[in-house]
């Protein structure tokens, strides 16, 4: 344990009060660069996401490039990408909490924020996707004058319930984990901010009783979140797998999607950690140990992902049914998106093999590039799955093609801006590194020598 403690901080351990100072200063001192970035990203979100969406609402979903064959397009593949990206933060944080891995403590807050915001972005894509967004509330089970309830047999209803639960659980998880830190911010600030944080921390004082209760509750949240996160992406995969479409109708889809989700989520965490180190000055708290561990995780996940991909193609080839075989062939070679397929194999299966080298694993800049490549690969993976299966189902007379329209591409770009905007707001509201849990990983303030 103490060996880990030494490894966790590259530049020596900070003291307790230094932790408070570093984290809260990063929260309260805002440079003009921050505002410029915020304005740019919010503007991009408005221009590239909101504006085309309003246009699409006015004219109809025909503004997107979807057609009779490909009724689903980039909106749905992006939805799956963002849900996938949300799959590492809370899940990883909960698993590492249960297994008492100390290295989790300085990165988990931002990782969970990533979960929350990518989940929100994914929910936006559901809205963008549906034809009549003004009736989307009909998918919620609420008593209504029509006396009509949603169809709980539909895989889309599983989605609604799963995402609702996941959004609730991960918001609760991140908020409860930050309660003591809100109190710390309250103690250090004055005026309006002090009053806001006093309300936000619910009057937290850090008594033994409160810590005790929080510890119990937090462990329960973690225990509840783990099976939830696994179920969410399984359920999302069943949107596909429950159809009869060749190329989507695979039993392996649930583990495939869950693995891919954690994979892209972990890569996302690496990207976000790099940003935090670079722009928020958290290099002292996020160091070699974290990047090394995350990279090892990435390596393992990439190997599992590759294996499942081979399985999927093998079962398509081995099935002998012409529909399935041809769907695979269309995806990897004959279709218009074969190059995207191989790009995804290159980025997600081949490139991560370099992580066997420890020197690459601990190099932040190289890891940034690799993590971004992985997420580009995962984005195209979802697109390839949708765009290469749906245009060719069973009847050759109606075979078609699908290519995203400008509106779709613009909304895809805008979704990244939405995520960035939300994250920028987050780092100025939440302490982006958990103050009290980083303190827990420091050498304890003891008079006597530790016996453990």
């Amino acid at each position, binding site marked *: 344990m103490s060996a880990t403690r030494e490894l966790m901080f590259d530049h020596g351990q900070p*003291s*307790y009060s230094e932790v*408070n100072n570093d984290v809260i200063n990063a929260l309260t001192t805002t440079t003009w660069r921050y505002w410029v970035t915020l304005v740019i990203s919010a503007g991009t979100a408005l221009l590239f996401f909101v504006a085309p969406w309003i246009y699409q609402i006015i004219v109809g979903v025909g503004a997107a490039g979807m057609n009779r064959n490909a009724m689903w397009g980039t909106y749905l593949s992006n939805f799956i990408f963002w849900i996938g990206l949300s799959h590492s933060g809370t899940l990883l944080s909960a698993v590492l909490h249960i297994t008492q891995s100390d290295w989790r403590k300085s990165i988990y807050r931002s990782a969970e924020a990533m979960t929350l915001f990518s989940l929100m972005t994914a929910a936006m894509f559901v809205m963008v996707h549906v034809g009549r967004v003004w009736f989307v509330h009909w998918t919620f*089970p609420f008593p209504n004058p029509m*006396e*009509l*309830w*949603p*169809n*709980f*047999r*539909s895989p889309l*209803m*599983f989605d609604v*319930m*799963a995402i*609702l*639960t996941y959004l*609730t*659980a991960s918001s*609760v998880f991140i908020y*409860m984990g930050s309660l*003591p830190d809100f*109190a*710390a911010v309250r*103690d*250090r600030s004055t005026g309006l901010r002090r009053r806001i944080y*006093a*309300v936000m921390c*619910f*009057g*937290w*004082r*850090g*008594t*033994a*009783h*409160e*810590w*005790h*209760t*929080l510890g*119990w*509750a937090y462990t*329960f*949240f973690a225990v*509840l*979140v783990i*099976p*939830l996160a696994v*179920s969410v992406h399984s*359920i999302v995969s069943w949107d596909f797998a429950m159809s009869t479409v060749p190329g989507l109708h695979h039993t392996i889809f649930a583990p495939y999607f869950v693995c891919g989700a954690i994979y892209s989520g972990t890569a996302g965490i690496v990207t976000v950690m790099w940003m935090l180190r670079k722009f928020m000055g958290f290099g002292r708290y996020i160091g070699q140990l974290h990047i090394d561990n995350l990279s090892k995780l990435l390596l393992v996940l990439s190997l599992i992902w590759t294996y499942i991909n081979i399985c999927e193609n093998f079962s398509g080839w081995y099935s002998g049914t012409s529909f399935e075989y041809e769907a695979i062939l269309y995806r990897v070679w004959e279709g218009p998106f074969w190059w995207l397929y191989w790009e995804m194999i290159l980025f997600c299966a081949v490139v991560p093999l370099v992580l066997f080298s420890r020197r690459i694993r601990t190099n932040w800049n190289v890891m940034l590039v690799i993590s971004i490549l992985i997420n580009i690969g995962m984005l195209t993976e979802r697109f390839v799955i949708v765009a290469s299966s749906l245009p060719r189902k069973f009847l050759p007379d109606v075979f078609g093609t699908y290519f995203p329209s400008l509106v779709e591409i613009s909304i895809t770009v805008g979704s990244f801006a939405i995520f960035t905007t939300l994250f920028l707001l987050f780092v100025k509201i939440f302490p982006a590194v958990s103050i*009290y*849990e980083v*303190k*827990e990983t420091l050498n*304890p*303030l*003891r*008079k006597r020598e530790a016996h453990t």
Partner: protein
Amino acid sequence: MTLLASFAHEDAALDAARALREKGVAGVDLYSPIPLHGAEEALGLGKSLVRVFTLLGGILGAIGGFTLCVWTATRFILPTAGRPVITLPPYLLITYESTILLGTLMTLLGFFVVARLPAWRDRTYRASSNVDRFVISVAGPGAAEAEDILRAAGAESIERESAS
């Protein structure tokens, strides 16, 4: 009157809390910047009641989720795809999700009830205890005899605060 003793070391604070408990002093509380591992035992805190809330929430969610599916499906029968009206596999999925949803919400409720939060009024509190100090407060009649014990345990400073 409330006595507030501040400690720089967690083991000293825990020793003091333990000593106070042995003397049978009531109204002792320990404020710390991090959750202290010995604190449960030093202050005599047992298993938290939160677990009861979680269990209740889980059971409620499971029953509620399944009932919601069955009740809404049988209220107005809309046959789909040759499936039975009560279709077990999909309804169990909804049940699974609602179990976790209600479990989480009830745990949240349990936390607030058990920790007696939110408490936005002014209460005895030293901001330093959220940075790097461990503060023991003794409220009520035990305060007088507690002072010696706290000083003996190595308190940095001892303050008094009249009851608010």
